[in-house]
């Protein structure tokens, strides 16, 4: 799974919208789209312990990404289905397209770990995985071991890559961008929030996911490499060993599901990403016209 990459990609999408969509795609739509897949599936991955009894999935990676399981939440099929449901309910183009792009980004980013995601569900329930780092969520290790493995592997590099993508488009984080591109796309929501928060609070709310992403990278990496004292192969160590090899780190067994040939994963995923952007761009104007008709008909 990816950690802070999911926080950074929200801003990367904002910064790389097609020209005709700039200032018109809802930031909250992108954020929610990126958030929903893990919100729906992850609560049971780590589970909870009450009075010493653990409640959660016995095979977390199967539950999280597989079928049967909640793996359908990390698919383009779910992205399209949820977007369609939102669109039919509210006829809000800004939100629907934002949601589609955010959801797609989440599902596609997760192809990197050893479990991957079922990108062609329901046609094909085989996972698409590049095996870049080990999927390490286990019922015994929980969130901490998962974090330690992720930030000791190429997952850390992935987070830093997405951070660099956002920093290369740093203007997306400015107050000016928020005022000219983000507020106009979501006028009602920002105006409602503006009843309670001053402008610096609203801008902080916009930047909060980025802030959380950076803090997550620094915080978990610091803990994993400088504070934790794990016992690995019977030896107590000072920090989890960093291992930037493919499907690392070596000290944890990479979980996996039945997957397609890794060589077709990267080009296939990039094609799917391109197809979603192309489709969003093509339906943009027709959705605008449909929204206008709906607005007039229902007097909203």
């Amino acid at each position: 799974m990816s950690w802070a990459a999911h926080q950074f990609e929200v801003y990367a999408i904002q910064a790389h919208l097609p020209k005709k969509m700039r200032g018109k795609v809802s930031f909250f739509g992108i954020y929610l789209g990126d958030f929903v897949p893990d919100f729906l599936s992850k609560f049971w991955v780590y589970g909870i312990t009450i009075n010493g009894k653990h409640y959660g999935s016995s095979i977390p990676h199967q539950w999280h990404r597989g079928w049967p399981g909640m793996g359908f939440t990390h698919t383009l099929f779910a992205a399209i289905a949820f977007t369609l449901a939102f669109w039919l309910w509210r006829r809000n183009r800004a939100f629907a397209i934002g949601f589609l792009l955010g959801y797609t980004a989440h599902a596609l980013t997760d192809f990197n770990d050893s479990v991957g995601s079922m990108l062609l569900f329901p046609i094909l329930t085989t996972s698409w995985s590049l095996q870049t780092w080990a999927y390490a969520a286990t019922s015994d290790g929980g969130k901490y071991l998962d974090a330690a493995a992720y930030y000791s592997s190429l997952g850390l590099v992935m987070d830093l890559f997405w951070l660099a993508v956002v920093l290369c488009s740093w203007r997306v984080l400015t107050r000016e961008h928020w005022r000219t591109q983000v507020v106009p796309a979501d006028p009602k929501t920002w105006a409602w929030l503006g009843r309670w928060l001053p402008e610096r609070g609203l801008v902080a709310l916009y930047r909060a996911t980025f802030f959380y992403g950076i803090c997550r990278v620094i915080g978990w990496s610091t803990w994993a490499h400088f504070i934790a004292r794990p016992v690995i192969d019977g030896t107590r160590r000072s920090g989890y060993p960093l291992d930037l090899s493919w499907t690392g780190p070596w000290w944890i067994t990479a979980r996996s599901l039945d997957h397609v040939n890794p060589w077709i994963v990267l080009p296939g995923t990039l094609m799917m990403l391109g197809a979603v952007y192309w489709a969003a761009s093509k339906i943009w104007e027709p959705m605008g016209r449909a929204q206008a008709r709906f607005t007039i008909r229902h007097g909203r």
Partner: protein
Amino acid sequence: MAFVKQRADDGDHGVDAPRHRIASFGRADASRRSDALLRSDAGSAGPEPPGGTPGTIDHRRSRRLGHPELWIWYLLAAVTYIGLGVFHKFLFNWFIGPIWLIAVVVIGPALWDWRRRSTRAGK
């Protein structure tokens, strides 16, 4: 019906007029409109500030912070959040993280201003 057709013919938009205008006008204009939008909804009747300049008052009559001061508050939020989170890992949470930043950036300067005012009044 004619209106609908006319809007449909112009290709894009027709979504809602104010939003369309915001996107079509320049950045400065969009910025002023964002101000007006927040101001009208907050029920504040004060004059419109010039483009969100630091030092001016926003739609809730809160002081806009300059860049150096804002950086200090963001840095304080990050240092305290990471510092505490490393030892209390439950704090690294998608809900607490964003709330932490907003709380520090909103409440911090307000408390600072209040303390300065009360110190000045005490003298």
